[in-house]
């Protein structure tokens, strides 16, 4: 167990380099796709089949999107005949593709950290290398981040607006429709029109975690380390500055199904965003009407507190389509 600075990470994997991503897809995603497909077929009816099917679909999507940006990708892998060996290899490869594990884990980690990120955190704190227009342009093009279509823009004309704009992948769950107001607020996650390479990798990571939770027959395989737990333990925890009762629980093991398009999230203490004002409220009747302010802060502080845990995945944020409501989730296993 060691650490890597974001700067070292980006320079090692060179995300602006198409060949770099192609190697990742061919050596990591393709074998997992074949193994997961085989396990899903061979153990149909078992819990392992469901998670393997999801992972196989995610890997297929990564592969399809990769072809658009990376050109031809070699799809060759010989699946072991022995079904139990398939299980073993699947778990081993999933472990070694997980965030920050081995060489492949560096690619998933990089893509994962760009799920939802403010511009100031991205360029000032995390990857200043991406200030370089050419590198940024290529990286964003490959991963599918659109600077002209951010996930969130503060509804205030201010010099801070640009900094607090959130970039990310439209196809990884973040933008929602409000379905219920009042004591509880329910958000349903909106689907994206087009899959992005980055968003597909992030969903692929959720699939890896689902397989690494080893349901059903997969429990017969023991990895040498619990990489998911180690990762979460080492990640910055949720910010204590934000109201403790405003956090929902997101179980990473099942998030492949629960944090997906059209799934609903119900929470009793949402955050209301009004210009730069951010309030954790007890009851929310509309974007502008609330009762019982539990905490009041500003957008700058809110996002700066949130960012370290958000980019690593310990925290997750869901936003209403008008950017006026936010739900915070704490990821755990």
């Amino acid at each position, binding site marked *: *167990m060691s650490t890597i600075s974001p700067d070292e990470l980006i320079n090692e994997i060179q995300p602006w380099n198409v060949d770099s991503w192609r190697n990742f897809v061919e050596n990591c995603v393709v074998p997992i796709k074949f193994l997961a497909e085989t396990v899903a077929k061979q153990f149909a009816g078992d819990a392992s089949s469901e998670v393997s099917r999801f992972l196989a679909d995610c890997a297929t999507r990564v592969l399809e999107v990769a072809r658009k940006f990376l050109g031809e990708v070699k799809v060759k892998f010989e699946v072991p005949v*022995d079904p139990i060996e398939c299980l*073993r290899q699947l*778990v081993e490869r999933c472990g070694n593709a997980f965030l*920050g594990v081995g060489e492949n884990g560096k690619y998933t980690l990089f893509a994962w950290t760009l799920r939802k990120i403010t511009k100031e955190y991205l360029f000032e704190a995390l990857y200043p290398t991406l200030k370089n227009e050419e590198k940024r342009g290529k990286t964003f093009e490959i991963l599918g981040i659109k600077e002209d279509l951010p996930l969130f823009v503060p509804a205030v004309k201010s010099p801070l607006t640009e900094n607090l704009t959130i970039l990310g992948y439209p196809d990884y769950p973040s933008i929602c429709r409000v379905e219920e107001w009042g004591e509880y607020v329910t958000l349903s996650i909106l689907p994206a*029109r087009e899959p992005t390479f980055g968003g597909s990798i992030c969903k692929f990571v959720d699939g890896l975690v689902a397989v690494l939770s080893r349901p059903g027959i997969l429990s017969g395989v023991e*990895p040498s380390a619990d990489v998911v737990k180690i990762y979460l333990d080492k990640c910055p925890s949720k910010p204590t500055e934000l109201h403790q009762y405003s956090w929902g629980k997101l179980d990473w093991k099942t998030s492949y199904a629960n944090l997906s398009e059209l799934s609903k999230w119900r929470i009793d203490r949402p955050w209301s965003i009004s210009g730069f004002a951010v309030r954790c409220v007890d009851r929310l009747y509309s974007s502008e009407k609330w009762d019982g302010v539990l905490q009041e802060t500003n957008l700058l502080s809110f996002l700066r507190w949130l960012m370290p845990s958000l980019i690593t995945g310990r925290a997750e944020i869901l936003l209403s389509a*008008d950017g006026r409501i936010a739900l915070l989730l704490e990821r755990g296993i």
Partner: protein
Amino acid sequence: MSEERRRLKALHYVEDYLEDLLYMLLSAKERPEVEVKIEEAKEAQKIRVVSVTPEGRKTEIISEAPHPSLKELPLLTPINVMRPLELTQPILPLENEVSAEVRLQSLYKIGYLLQMPVKVFDYEVKRILPLHLPLVSPIFYSWLREEIKPVGFLEQPEVNAFTLKNLLRLVEILPKLPRTAERIEANVKVPALTSNIFPIQNEVKTTLTDTAESLRAKAQAQHVKGRGLLELIFPEEMEKFRRFRGASGGYVGEPIIIVLPESEHHLWYLFWVICREFYREVKGEYPEPVVLLDKGCELWLRVSGMFSEKIIILREQSIKDDESKKWFKRRLQEAFSQGLGFLIIMTKNVDNTVTFIKESCKPYAPMIIDVRTLPELSRLMEVLIRVLSAGFGIPYSELCKVDDLRAGDKVAMIVEGKLQEFPQMDIIVTRVDRAYRNFVNELLSSNYLAHVRRDVSERESEDHVAMKILAIKYINERFNIKPEKIACTFDVGSEVIADVYVEERALAVECETMFGTAPAPLLKIFESVRKYIERAISKPINEIWVIIRNWSAILHLGDLLWIENILREELKKRSKEINVKFFIPDVYGKYLKPIDDIVNIIFSGG
């Protein structure tokens, strides 16, 4: 895009919503701002708020507010920026004015000093004029937009005026209100940007739990069951070859006719050897070989012509003339009541030949194994070499060397993009067969022979003796147990004789050539192991090894692994602490190799 058109666009996806929101934010610039005018009037101020509705209509709200009269904002407590000031209505003591007047009667006729009327005020203050405090509210914005709401005042300390002097002061001058002790300073306190350091981890390895290992064995056994050398070489003809293999264990009362497509790669020799091995399993002896590839077919059919107890190899072209056809037809019909034998026919057209045979035999329906499609040569060779190399323990390089071969005995193939030469198929099979025979001979002439005792049966084959020698050699070398302490053909219980027994390790070894074990030769292996758990045993047994002769092992490989698994489960269920392990001799290294390892090599393609 006009706003109306944008509004008509359905919002379904994340991208739609984000585009719409962005448009709204950007277009907000173009809207006229709210205009606020304040007009001074005598009694109050007039506030006009002029704004434009989203539809473009102009609205005006006029409201009035009295003049604020207090010039200084009284600050009673330090401002708590974390909590808005609480505004309450002031409660001031307001009382009615009291006046009292006493008029004194004039004294007439008496001249007194006239005095002016005297006014006497009450001791207490009866009325205090209302104070006008400034309108200060944190919700000024909403007040401005909508309507004038009741304005809250800062809570004032109760003021009492006890004297006229005090009262006058209260009326005339501003009340002395407490002031804040210090100036208020505001500091910006926002969290600083902190960079993350990401955790990275070394690659992980995975192992299987005991349950999974057991499950793996079961699944693998089930997966490979019924698959041997022939099924691996001809996967598309698997069912036919299962029937063929079954013939050596099932109904053995008839000849089997094998129809092969003509091949320049001498495929027939492989079938010839396989038929020989099946025949040995069934009958326990060698079949008589008859080769009619070139000429003499008609003569043989006329003079001898019985298929049973033989392996006959001929070409379809050899039966062209009417006389040959007549005799061939006759011999085929006679096959309905003969024992096991094999007729291998090579033909250019398998379909026609099969039809011809079927027509010739009528009304008898013979057992025909027809191979209609041959796999690609490179695939066929790759599987054949892999199975034979692993199954006999002969190195790949030894099997495939071509240095000493004539051009006609070699075949060129493209393997992994490179043109390579390999021996013809019959050469490979011959090499394996030769290596096995040499291995048996070598063992039979080794010093370990001195420690071997013959079986009680007089029909013990040289292969069986050689396997007992190999078992003694292996145990001696692996466990460093002296040959003298390794018993051979040893009585370990009531009618239970182990081929080899090692008391020191409580190990019994069974050598299985599978010769003459029909019907169902594989049952013999079940019997060999079950005797240790079903009969009374007088010696300790913790482990049973079953050594299976190489040719039989590769022909029944899948079934053997399945049997091993079944027997393990059976022993576990019967609470016997006995482990069963199947081995195959390694002809090259002269040691024993677990069958699981060989299955892994063969079926994983490694």
